């Protein structure tokens, strides 16, 4: 592979490192490590790509778009339901069944969703407005090293957390919405994140759920023992990159 060929391939290599383990890039990356001129070119290419990506990600959708999407989907569902049932009697009966089933099945989930959202909002408020002592940066070095490592996706595997020892280690601990929480701050690629750890909450499953509130963003998920909410002021995209 000559340098021109390597450049052609590496132009498709994302600056956030998401392709680092893709075998298609390994040979070209290796060549860039060996050849200083190709290495410099790659460095410049990545720096430029990163700025362009950041600028594009900074473009915010119109404020009303999310609400419109959700409202539109709801309206479409209602319209489709009417189209399926031509008889008003059958439609009324079906509607009753749906309502009863919905009340019995969805109500507990709704409460869970509400708790989860409330908890996420409390976490975001704390991350945005409260004092974060140096302790929470220094504490729990094993965990902090793990979560600061850009090759670790936080929600992909259980984290090295001993929640019971976190306070002893000097982590900031607090109570949010009745939940005992330990907090550790960390940084990745110059962006600051706050990780909140609490005993496992039923409302958070293994798949991360995302929240936005007051200009902050958070994602929450659980493993077998703990629930985690990570918050940042750098937006949802910054969270998605680390999960």
């Amino acid at each position, binding site marked *: 592979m000559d340098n021109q060929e390597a450049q*052609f*391939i590496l*132009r*498709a290599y*994302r*600056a*956030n490192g*998401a*392709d680092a383990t*893709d075998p*298609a890039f390994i040979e070209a990356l290796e060549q860039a490590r060996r050849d200083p001129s190709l290495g410099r070119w790659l460095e*410049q290419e990545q*720096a*430029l*790509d*990163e*700025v*362009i*990506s950041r*600028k*594009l*990600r*900074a*473009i*915010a*959708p*119109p404020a009303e*778009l*999310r609400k*419109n*999407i*959700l409202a*539109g*989907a*709801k309206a*479409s*569902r209602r319209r*489709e339901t009417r189209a399926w049932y031509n008889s008003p009697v059958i439609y009324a009966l079906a509607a009753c069944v749906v309502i009863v089933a919905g009340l019995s099945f*969805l109500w507990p*989930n709704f409460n869970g*969703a509400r708790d989860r959202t409330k908890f996420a909002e409390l976490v975001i408020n704390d991350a945005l407005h409260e004092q974060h002592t140096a302790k929470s940066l220094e504490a729990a070095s094993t965990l902090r090293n793990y979560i600061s490592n850009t090759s670790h996706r936080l929600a992909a595997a259980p984290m090295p957390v001993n929640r019971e020892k976190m306070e002893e280690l000097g982590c900031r601990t607090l109570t949010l919405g009745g939940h005992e929480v330990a907090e550790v701050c960390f940084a990745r690629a110059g962006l600051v994140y706050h990780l909140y750890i609490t005993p496992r909450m039923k409302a958070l499953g293994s798949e991360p*759920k*995302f*929240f*936005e509130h007051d200009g902050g963003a958070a994602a929450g998920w659980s493993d077998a023992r703990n629930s985690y909410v990570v918050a940042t002021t750098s937006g*949802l*995209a910054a969270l*998605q*990159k680390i999960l």
Partner: protein
Amino acid sequence: MSQEAFVQIVDAHYSALYRFALSLSRSEADASDLTQQTFYVWATKGHALREVGKVKSWLFTTLYREFLRGRRRGERITSLDTTPEAETAAVEPEALEAMDSQAVMSALQDVDEVFRAPLTLFYLQELSYQEIAEALEIPIGTVMSRLSRGKAQLRARLNEKRGATNVVSFPTAKDETANG
């Protein structure tokens, strides 16, 4: 699909989809419509998708198809793959930092459409080059080729935009009167 799951997917992807749509359609209103339309299709047909991990690719693919479908009749993309590659114009990251996001998006919107779609997906960093190939339904080699040419075009457009913002206009007679 539950309402909760639907909201979850909207929250995770609507911003990136909107940016992709804005790059394609060059209009905020059209981009909003395309994004909404994509989620409408998801709400009605998403249940057919069996692999949960493919939701993101599916949404980008659907948005791109909706964009192509909504194109005015008779309007076609001119294939530019046979055009010679533009010489890559030099752009310094520092100079680019000084540009605002809208100017960068505007430069991207000026790139030829065949390059713009893969280029935007690449810069959004949501999809790998293989996923871009699947979303746009083109071969992987074509994605790489279009990224290479598209980057060259984008840099030329960025330089033009930077040049335009550096131009100092002469005061008009009206300005001179106003300034005394």
